[in-house]
């Protein structure tokens, strides 16, 4: 116990923040994406620590299994893997950094001012079955909307990223036959 915090919590939060900082400062884009994965894994561990098993595993499945791979593919498809010659930071980087620091200061101030120092609530007993029942009863409308959204996003992403001219594809098909 350090500052009244558990070792596990300190380790996972240090991992999370270190991954995020590395994603912010590293030059090579693939390194940024890989350190982002560390952050995602750290957040999943924090969810597990909070007793949200289902959300933690979903986080790993969706973020590490899908989003990180997507990011990496996008980096390779846009030839971003090589270290660029130009500067990595935009011309107004100091403004952005100042805004981020101000937001963090504001949030920390709000957190420390508005909450009692410690409170103990018994861990909620949640199993996967109750989540499933809730998804199919109380939250069935959001579930359907998310399903439609994901379908739309799938089709939309394919259409946006698809080459506009059909010439190369049809010639490939002709040569294949």
């Amino acid at each position, binding site marked *: 116990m350090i500052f009244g915090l558990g070792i596990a919590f300190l380790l996972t939060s240090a991992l999370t923040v270190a991954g995020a900082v590395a994603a912010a400062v590293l030059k090579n884009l693939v390194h940024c994406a*890989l350190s982002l994965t560390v952050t995602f894994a750290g957040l999943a561990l924090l969810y597990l620590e909070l007793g949200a098993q289902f959300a933690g595993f979903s986080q790993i499945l969706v973020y*590490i*299994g899908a989003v990180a*791979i997507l990011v*990496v593919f996008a980096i*390779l498809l846009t030839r971003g893997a090589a270290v660029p010659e130009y500067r990595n930071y935009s011309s107004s980087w100091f403004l952005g950094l100042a805004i981020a620091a101000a937001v963090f200061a504001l949030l920390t101030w709000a957190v420390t001012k508005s909450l009692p120092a410690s409170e103990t609530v018994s861990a909620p007993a949640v199993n*996967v079955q109750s989540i499933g029942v809730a998804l199919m009863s109380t939250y069935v409308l959001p579930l359907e909307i998310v399903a439609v959204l994901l379908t739309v996003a799938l089709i939309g992403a394919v259409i946006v990223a698809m080459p506009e001219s059909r010439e190369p594809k049809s010639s490939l098909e002709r040569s294949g036959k």
Partner: protein
Amino acid sequence: MSFSSKLDQIFILLQHWIAGFFPQALQPVVGTILGVVAIVAAFPGIFALTTVLERKGLGRMQNRLGPNRVGPLGILQPVADGIKSLTKEDIVPLSADALVHFLAPVVLVVAIFLCYAVLPVGRNMVLMNMDAGLLFFFAIGASTELSIFMAGWSSRNKYSLLGAMRAVAQMISYEVPLLLSSVVAVMITGSLSTVKIVEAQSGFTGWFPHWYVFTPWGFAGFVLFVIAALAETNRSPFDLPEGESELVAGYFTEYSGFKFALFFLGEYLGMFSIAGFAITLFLGGWGAPLSVLGFIPSWAWFFAKLFGAIFFFIWLRGTMPRLRQDQLMNFAWKFMLPMALLNLLVAGAWRFLGEGWSRWVICSVVLIGAYVLLGRVLMRGQHLGPRSYRYAD
């Protein structure tokens, strides 16, 4: 406690006996550590056995002898291979990204060992009986893709990168049918816990077990799961990512020595874990295949089924030609995905049609009809036939 049930629980009793030497507070920790040690010892042992079985089996299928020099019948071949890979020079290419190049095999092996935590290898023999065990397996399995990408990208070699891209694309495409085909077992059991899925299949009707594979939706799900598992583990006929004739060795071209051995280990352990989950989901896990054979310990049944699955994988490798990239993707998205989705519907219908023979007929007819129809449509214009050879005059 009778003798057979004692034999069934021998490893659990052993674990409790050893943990008994430690103070009360430490006992759960010691028990977990013993479980981890057992997994880390047993599955690499099976890996060593499998390498020699595979080489000898492939040798038989290709009408040659296979390894037969080291030890009696070549059984000590894995020891020699292990010593060789440990003593070989570890070469890292000059332009490679050394840190990522080092981390890739480590991440792969660690992730795959984590999968075994929720695999029930016998009655009461599971390291963590998690409520969301199956989700854990898929989540950890999905993160192995990243380590393959890391290996391919950090090597700075075009064959490595091509192999890694092929592997990642293939694994993502086949993960969708893999997940969907396992959902039927979850639907009927009503739980994501691997232990509960096995227990739901442990009953008998007369002599015959209630395995999910003996139902229409279970059979379809099992076949889809096995095909997707083959692709997920990059085994033949889906071994495009490491096709020797095209890509040298794919994403681990630039790996040598111990790191190569780690990749080799990771690949085989991935195969065992996914075969273990196929057994858990559809083949009754550690259950006996006939009610009269219940006296044989549960762990023996699990490992017997695992070796059967391993033999099946070796057999396929010896007999199937490699697919082409376009065939691979078309098969995943145009055949596997619709069939897996239809299978979900069929499993739901099975659940609500109630007991009786009518649900057997309806579900079987729907699945077979869809299979025939989809097959006909997809094979139209393929012009498959005996290969015609032309010889130089």
